[in-house]
């Protein structure tokens, strides 16, 4: 059975897996400029590799309640696909590891990692209203 590498992240108490191929970089301590008047899903604006980066709250995007402080880690991720692909920062509490998940995990939308239920994120569709 073939597997695909995923970046395992922690959002509060729960886990999420991002396809490693979509993850550009994991960054910590990026300077975030919060925007007054912006929606709750926007953590702030940052700079990455000379370019402006909008940082969104992954937990909020996944429909989970955000508790506690602002996300400490920014996972710079390609969202969308093709020409529509854009680099967006996803704010998470912790980036854990890169792990192999079953290829079917994405389609399932979730997997068990170390016994723990994990949301498998479809980065191509993330943030787009259905």
């Amino acid at each position: 059975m073939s597997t695909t590498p995923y970046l395992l992240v922690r959002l509060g108490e729960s886990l999420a897996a991002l396809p490693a191929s979509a993850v550009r970089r994991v960054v910590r301590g990026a300077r975030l400029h919060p925007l007054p008047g912006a929606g709750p899903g926007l953590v702030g604006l940052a700079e990455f590799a000379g370019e402006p980066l909008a940082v969104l709250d992954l937990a909020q995007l996944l429909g989970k309640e955000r508790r506690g402080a602002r996300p400490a880690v920014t996972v710079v991720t390609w969202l969308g696909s093709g020409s529509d692909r854009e680099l967006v920062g996803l704010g998470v509490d912790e980036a854990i590891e890169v792990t192999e998940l079953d290829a079917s995990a994405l389609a399932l939308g979730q997997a068990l990692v170390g016994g723990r239920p994990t949301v498998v994120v479809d980065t191509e569709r993330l943030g787009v209203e259905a």
Partner: protein
Amino acid sequence: MTGGFLIVRRGGVLWGLPAEHVSGIERVERVEPAVSGLDLLLTGGSRLAVESVLTLAEDLAVQPLSARLRRFLPAGSSGLAILAGEPIVLMMREDDASHV
């Protein structure tokens, strides 16, 4: 003003307005909120209160906002840019300024 963007700071964040939309800048003393600052006089006739004006940037690399991001950013934002390592939110249309 023609060409380029006028880069101003408002609410701690950098904004960029197309220069041709700005007709003037006025220094203003405000009581409420107790902020002294500047008023941009817009060609539409409205005024935009800003904390400071940084510069007029002529060659900004504009990154247009995707539909995805547009949902999260304030209405009227049309793009993002970087100036000296700091992100800027760009306002493209004149009448968008009122939404800022």
